């Protein structure tokens, strides 16, 4: 598993735990940002994946939608884990918004062409 590489890369978290117990405002905001990235950014990526799957799966309409919804949670999970595994909160957002934009473009392109 990629567990080892994942747990090593968390410099921000290491800094946040000085023995004194004090946590800086900056670190608090970074954690809040990661949580929002996981919840909202993760949902966005998941929803766009399900939309694209429903559009492109070569199945009857209702079946494609059911399969798209069923599988979508398998995207949400790594998306959330990514938000807490990557180096900085900014990268968490970037890592979700970039593929979301690509999926949105593919879907919009297909809708426009077809």
């Amino acid at each position: 598993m990629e567990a080892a590489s994942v747990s090593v890369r968390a410099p921000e978290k290491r800094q946040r735990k000085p023995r004194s117990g004090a946590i800086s405002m900056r670190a608090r905001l970074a954690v809040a940002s990661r949580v929002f990235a996981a919840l909202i950014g993760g949902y966005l990526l998941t929803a766009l994946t399900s939309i694209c799957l429903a559009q492109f799966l070569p199945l009857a309409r209702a079946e494609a939608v059911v399969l798209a919804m069923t599988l979508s949670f398998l995207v949400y999970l790594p998306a959330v884990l990514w938000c807490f595994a990557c180096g900085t909160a900014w990268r968490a957002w970037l890592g979700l918004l970039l593929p979301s934009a690509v999926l949105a473009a593919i879907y919009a392109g297909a809708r426009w062409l077809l």
Partner: protein
Amino acid sequence: MAWVHTWAGLTFGWLLFAIFLTGTLSYFKNEITQWAQPEITPHEVSSADGVNRAQQWLGENAPDAKRWFIRLPDERSPELGVSWSPAKGGFEEQPLDSLTGTAVKARESMGGEFFYRFHFQLQMPYPWGRWLASLAAMVMFVALISGIITHKKIFKEFFTFRPRKGQRTWLDGHNAVAVLVLPFHLMITYSSLVIFMTMIMPLSILTTYGKNTQGFFDDLFPAFKTAPASPDRAPLASIAPMLDVAADKWPGSRVGLITVNNPGSANASVTLTRHGADHIPHEPGTALVFDGVSGELKNESNMGAASLMLAGGLYGLHMGHFAAPLLRWLYFLAGIGGTAMIGTGLVIWLGKRRLKHAKAGVLPFELRLVEMLNVASMSGLMLAVVSFFWANRLLPVSFTGRSDWEVRAFFCVWGVALLHAFARVFFRDGRSAWREQLTVAASLYCLLPVLDMATAGGYLLASLKQGNLTLAALDLTALATGVFLAWGAFRFRGQGKTVIASKLAPAVQEAR
């Protein structure tokens, strides 16, 4: 990853504990209802006789309804269940005696339905409870996978249990129970999201079907597309012969729900679905539709497509309707395993942080808050559950609104447990909170069979004479629970100063 596991587990642990515990009870939903309404007794009745009696009762008592629903008695539910949507709206239901076809005068009680509803609606207004439960499910999914990533030596840890070593023991227990029922945990968490997917992930329906989202459900469940009642009246055909057609169409599978649309109207129709106990996937769309006047088979639909089988299979695995008694008990034990995993996790979170304050002997406010919530969400909930059963036996049978009072008893006791936990944790110590609540809970569980014998002993003995072990099994399960809780209370005896922090510190650091 450990960070996510720790904090996702803490923030949602209390809620997840309640969801898992009530979900575990829901595997015996029908059996709990049997216990809660012992007046309804099982009889050997053929499905044709059963459906004829239901049809006759509904024809006399709800002739103008928009829809009738009939459920035949089965090995888990003795009643002949009829329900209907009255023309003026709403929903009514009535259990019938399967032998006489008359309304059973059973005490009003939600029975197992209460725990089942709480499991995913959390007693909150629609749809907020379902959303919160779904969010908790997603957090559970994240906590599970991050937990697996955190514990790399998963196989070795499974065989490691060091009793009576405080924090180390809790961690070993947490790991062992998590790994032991890991397939169950993964299945139950993922499938819970699939069950609510049309609510929580609906955008693909909108992009595919546009504004006509009903079209999606009509595609999936064509048998349930209904037309408004025609004003012309015509007598309803007998439903019993339709069951014979279903027996030919679905060998080895009984009929589950019988739906009559527009009964008494010229365009009445009868929809039969398969019984959930006879196959794993949940297939509400596999149905036979009959003309309600001529009684001829008009239409059949099935959910055999692979993608529907995947989603329906996950749904069916979660609900466990197909599980025969042995498997049902395994489901129940796996559910207890999941509940225990969450509980031990909460205890570990606090125990680890408590060590830092062991020398001072005083816990800071936030740790006390966590301890209070630990006590209230675990032993408090156990108290609330048993109170529901006590209320069922103590409230007068003919008392109006008694069903609501059972639910009130549950929440009042839970609230009192929270207040008690607050008083003890903040003004004395956490151990006394655990000890006192566990002691009371242990007594209530242990005495439940006595109470049952005293207030409804006739039903218990009659059921045993009939060879029906359901009521006795619930009493014995309560007794076993009581013994377990008494052991827990015993472990919290004394002041708890025997465990020295320095002895535990290395174990905890290793675990970190």
